């Protein structure tokens, strides 16, 4: 029987309280780095992850777009991303924004 391990990633605690920038050239805590370090490994291992979004000092949309929309550009489908990643935030606009980036990236 396959068991799916769910991990919780708190961006503010596990990555940075100050995520910023789209690409690694933009800074040390970019969306590109977050995607590579935390999201891609979970998708590749067929695991499940809950992303806690609220413990940072705030996000730029460029960070969010690259971290989540960038997954689609790497070849993961929106369904696969949806089934693997659960987003948690007190701010409904943040979750809506990330979902929008995933769908937009898929539609090209």
């Amino acid at each position, binding site marked *: 029987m396959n068991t799916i391990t769910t991990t919780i990633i708190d961006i503010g605690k596990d990555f940075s309280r*100050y995520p*910023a*920038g*789209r*690409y690694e*050239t*933009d*800074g040390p805590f970019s969306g590109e780095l977050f995607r590579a370090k935390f999201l891609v490994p979970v998708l590749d291992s067929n695991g499940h992850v809950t992303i806690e979004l609220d413990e940072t*000092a*705030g*996000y*730029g*949309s*460029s*960070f969010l*777009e690259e971290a989540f929309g960038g997954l689609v550009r790497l070849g993961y489908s929106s369904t696969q991303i949806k089934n693997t990643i659960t987003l948690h935030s*007190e*701010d*409904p*606009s*943040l979750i*809506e*924004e990330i979902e*929008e980036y995933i769908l937009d990236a898929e539609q090209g």
Partner: protein
Amino acid sequence: MGWTQIVTWLLVILGWLLVNHQNNVREKRKEIRAILDKTQSFLDEIEVEAIKYHTSQESSDSAFQLKRNLNQKLRNKLDILKLRNLNVEKCYPYLKKLRQAVTLENFDTSSFKPQNLSDDLIKNIWLAKDKLSQELENSFATRYR
């Protein structure tokens, strides 16, 4: 005590309850209006700060403040209005659009380019801010029309 006196007292009490209720409604309306006005002023500040950021000759340190204002601080203000029973649900998509207008392009980036006031990025910030501002007013008008 005769029935006429009972009726008189009942009318006095009902009158007091009515006036008291109306006073409470008026006070609550004033209180929500004051919070809304502060939120509108805060939006004005964000707009000025965002335009300044994007039109500067080089990327500035205010990116952090902008993110803080466009995330927690603005959300907290909407949450306070929500706690006062103002229906601000329709404002959240506009909050998202404002955050995107300010921080999706040319933000927190090593390839920052100063914008002109006539550039689309700047116009989009103005429009997004106006729409959120208008939706806040709509929420208030719907509740107190």
